[in-house]
């Protein structure tokens, strides 16, 4: 077995990460940038990082993912990457003709101290940025943070670059959807529009990273938040930020920059978190919740009531990104499951508190952890179900515990790109997956005489 080395006994490990539960900032920044229409992400560093980030996103979404790279060599690493970036900006606008270049740094360019603001200003002065085109930026050194912070930084980069407060407030509500799938972003849009609310959702990777088969390759698919909308976001009457870690910084920056007040909510995963989101929309939009939405809610709750005996007391272990873990832990607790272990690779002080609030005091929580530690927790207390990304499958197999793939990356299944896990419909999908996993297991293990047709 692949993981037979994992010992049960947990020892302090300060210098070592074994089987990481996170990746680095740039991949998150790249993902966020792809949620802007006609935007080409650009990695300011050496080629390798960019190749890895593109591969990671390609494997997860099964879509082509484009990004430029400054192609650092030894020279750039010693003398700085200014010349490379200036040349890159010029080349990219000439050849690939995007509307926006979203530059993020890597560990390397951060460490040598390249100043993105100064370099991009210089590019503008030298006429390398055509009229009506933009270069936006984010600092994403990976020795601080993770892919989640990289996402947050680039969303903030979007806010720094586009929204303008013209003094004419509109009736629109901005929604920053958080580090979720394209399918989730479109579900969030759908819920708002179902309630008759005008929104600007950014970033929005739907129809970019879950696009249709068209018979031709488009460097810039039809999705992504359009620039005029991003500019108008400065006149909106409010911002709802979903997930404090991934969306909070951008929402606050927008408040400071354009005086658009923000509300920072949990990711709407599960019934209660979705209730909160829907209720905020209702209040801010001055509307009432539509029958359609109430029906969806009722259906999801119906599944829970019908099947609550199968959820009751079942133990779960969760590993993934912080905003997702908080909502997911709350949802599983709400349906009667016992959340036993929660690990996130991203560091953050409030994580532990938020998980305990969601899942009770005696849950094992770890921020900045890795898969090795997660596995040890499970060895010490077995669970009935694991929810985590594809890497969890090693543990799932080793311990013979069913796994539901959830989070980033998912390399070995499809569905996450197309079907949401946010909102009531997302809750329904999660419930279906959880039930299928638990009932399949029960069927598999049932004695001949207890093997039942109706469950």
């Amino acid at each position, binding site marked *: 077995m*692949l993981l037979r080395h994992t010992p049960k006994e947990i020892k302090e*490990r*300060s*210098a*070592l*990460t074994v*089987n*990481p539960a*996170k*990746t*680095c900032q740039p*991949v998150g920044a790249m993902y966020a940038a792809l949620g802007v229409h006609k935007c*080409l992400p650009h990695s300011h*560093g*050496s*080629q*390798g*990082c*960019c*190749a*890895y*980030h593109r*591969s990671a996103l*390609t*494997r997860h979404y*099964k*879509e*082509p993912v*484009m990004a*430029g*790279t*400054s*192609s*650092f*060599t*030894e020279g750039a*690493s010693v003398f700085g990457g200014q010349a490379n*970036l200036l040349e*890159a*900006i010029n080349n*990219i606008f000439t*050849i*690939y003709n995007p509307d926006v270049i979203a530059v993020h740094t*890597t*560990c*390397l360019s951060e*460490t*040598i101290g390249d100043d993105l603001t100064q370099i991009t200003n210089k590019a503008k002065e030298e006429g390398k940025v055509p009229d009506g085109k933009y270069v936006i930026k984010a600092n994403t050194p*990976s*020795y601080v943070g*993770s892919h989640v912070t990289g996402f947050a930084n680039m969303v903030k980069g979007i806010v720094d670059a586009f929204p303008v407060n013209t003094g004419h407030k509109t009736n629109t509500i901005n929604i920053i959807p958080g580090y979720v799938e394209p399918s989730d972003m479109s579900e969030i849009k759908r819920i708002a529009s179902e309630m008759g609310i005008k929104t600007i959702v950014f970033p929005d990777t739907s129809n970019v990273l879950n*696009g249709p*088969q*068209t*018979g*031709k*390759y*488009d*460097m810039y698919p039809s999705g992504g938040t359009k620039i005029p909308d991003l500019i108008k976001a400065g006149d909106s009457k409010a911002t709802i930020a979903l997930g404090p870690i991934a969306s909070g910084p951008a929402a606050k920056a927008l408040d400071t920059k354009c005086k658009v007040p923000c509300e920072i909510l949990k990711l709407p995963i599960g019934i209660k978190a979705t209730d909160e989101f829907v209720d905020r929309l209702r209040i801010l939009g001055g509307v009432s919740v539509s029958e359609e939405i109430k029906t969806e809610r009722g259906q999801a709750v119906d599944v829970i009531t019908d099947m609550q005996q199968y959820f009751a007391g079942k133990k779960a272990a969760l590993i993934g990104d912080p905003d997702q873990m908080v909502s997911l832990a709350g949802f599983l607790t709400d349906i009667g499951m016992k959340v036993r272990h929660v690990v996130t690779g991203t560091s953050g002080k409030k994580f532990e508190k938020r998980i305990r609030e969601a899942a009770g005091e005696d849950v094992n929580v770890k921020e900045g952890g890795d898969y090795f530690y997660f596995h040890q927790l499970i060895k010490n207390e077995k669970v009935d179900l694991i929810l985590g990304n594809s*890497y969890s499958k090693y543990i799932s197999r080793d311990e013979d515990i069913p796994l539901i793939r959830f989070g980033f990356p998912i390399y070995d299944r499809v569905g996450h790109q197309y079907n949401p896990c946010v909102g009531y419909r997302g809750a329904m999908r999660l419930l279906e997956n959880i039930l299928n996993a638990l009932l399949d297991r029960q069927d598999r293990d049932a004695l001949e005489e207890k093997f039942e047709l109706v469950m």
Partner: protein
Amino acid sequence: MEKLKILEGRRGQVFEKGKDAFKLNCGVKSTSGAVSQRACVFCGSRVVLYPITDALHLVHGPIGCAAYTWDIRGSMSSGPVINRHSFSTDLREIDVIYGGAEKLYKAASQLIDKHKPEAAFIYSTCIVGLIGDDVEAVCKKLSEEKKIPVINVDSAGFKGTKKDGYKAACESIAKLVGTGDISMIAPYSINILGEFNLAGEAWIIKDYYTRMGVNVNAVITGDGRVADLKRAHGAALNVVQCAGSMTYLAEIMKKKYNIPFIRVSYFGLDDMTSALYDVAAFFEKNPEINERAGMVVKDEMDAIMPGLLRYRKALSGKKAALYVGGAFKAFSLIKALRVLGMDVVLAGSQTGNKEDYEDLKKICDDGAIIIDDANPQELSRYITEKKADVLIGGVKERPIAYKIGIGFCDHNHERKIPLAGYAGMLNFAGEVYSSVMSPVWKLVLRNDTFGQKRSRP
């Protein structure tokens, strides 16, 4: 169609046979801003060394470099699996400021105590190259303390391309070679260099040679063991398969231990057969080996021919585009596709050199595009223009092919089914067949899908 703009700096890197006459420009660094499909030094050394299954592989750097290479390249093991973990020092800001050597020492030390590997490889990535940790000193100290070879793989990404990473890997392996006891090695022994056992290929090839009466001393590095590497200098011949990555090691071993080497390819019928006969020819003192090679070839061919001919019938006249890592692979592929009756309309590589491309020009048909370090825009454009039916490439190319609505065959890291040897040729044909002939291409939305008449040109 509107003319495709080629980056100014890239003009010399695209060539159409029969039309252009210039020498293809290659081996140059990618233009800044280009969407390149290339990777870095670390990537090169990691993929070569990763299949050494009883060694510890510790990535010294920030988390990303380790996270992305965690079990990303399949490589099957018949025993230990220490290599399949992802170990990282996960450098933080404070380490970047004050240096990470201490942390590296601690991490490696703990890991060696726990896993008791036969050797340890420490990969220094970009940041480490920059902050200047004395990794060499840490390795030396650990080697002495733990009594195993602890090797610094100097692989800062910015110092070159994947190719330079291969070189760094070869240098690391060379440090192990020559340190083991070779007294028991049989006289007709070879090392296989540049076979990584992604999907069990090393086992297939080993089986052929064994049936010929040739002992495979070490596979470098597929299903690799440190002890085998240490003994590699005991073989009579080095057989180099992935020339791009391993010729350098063969050269080192030639110089140091006087072991000759031959270049082979295990891909396609002709090349596979030559690979067996060439080894037999080297051991000409024992003509039985040649005889037995003949038997292996006959048995294997007999087994696959009926299947292969069925595929050929269906695939004859179809067009293929290929974009692979090394150019050497491209030759084998072109020949293999010809066996299937297919034409190659585009051949490109990430890291070909001048001679490679001159050879490619010779073997390609008129009209074929030859391309160095391509980007997706160019690839998709030429695939469409040349009406290819299948693209053969790696992970980043796959979704491009599917979006265009043509077949795809992975010839890179993500293989699950072996393509080497005779059985592998049948697998390859089968994969190309099922992708090209997939009924799904008939489902692609067309002008007349919903009843509208196709507009006449």
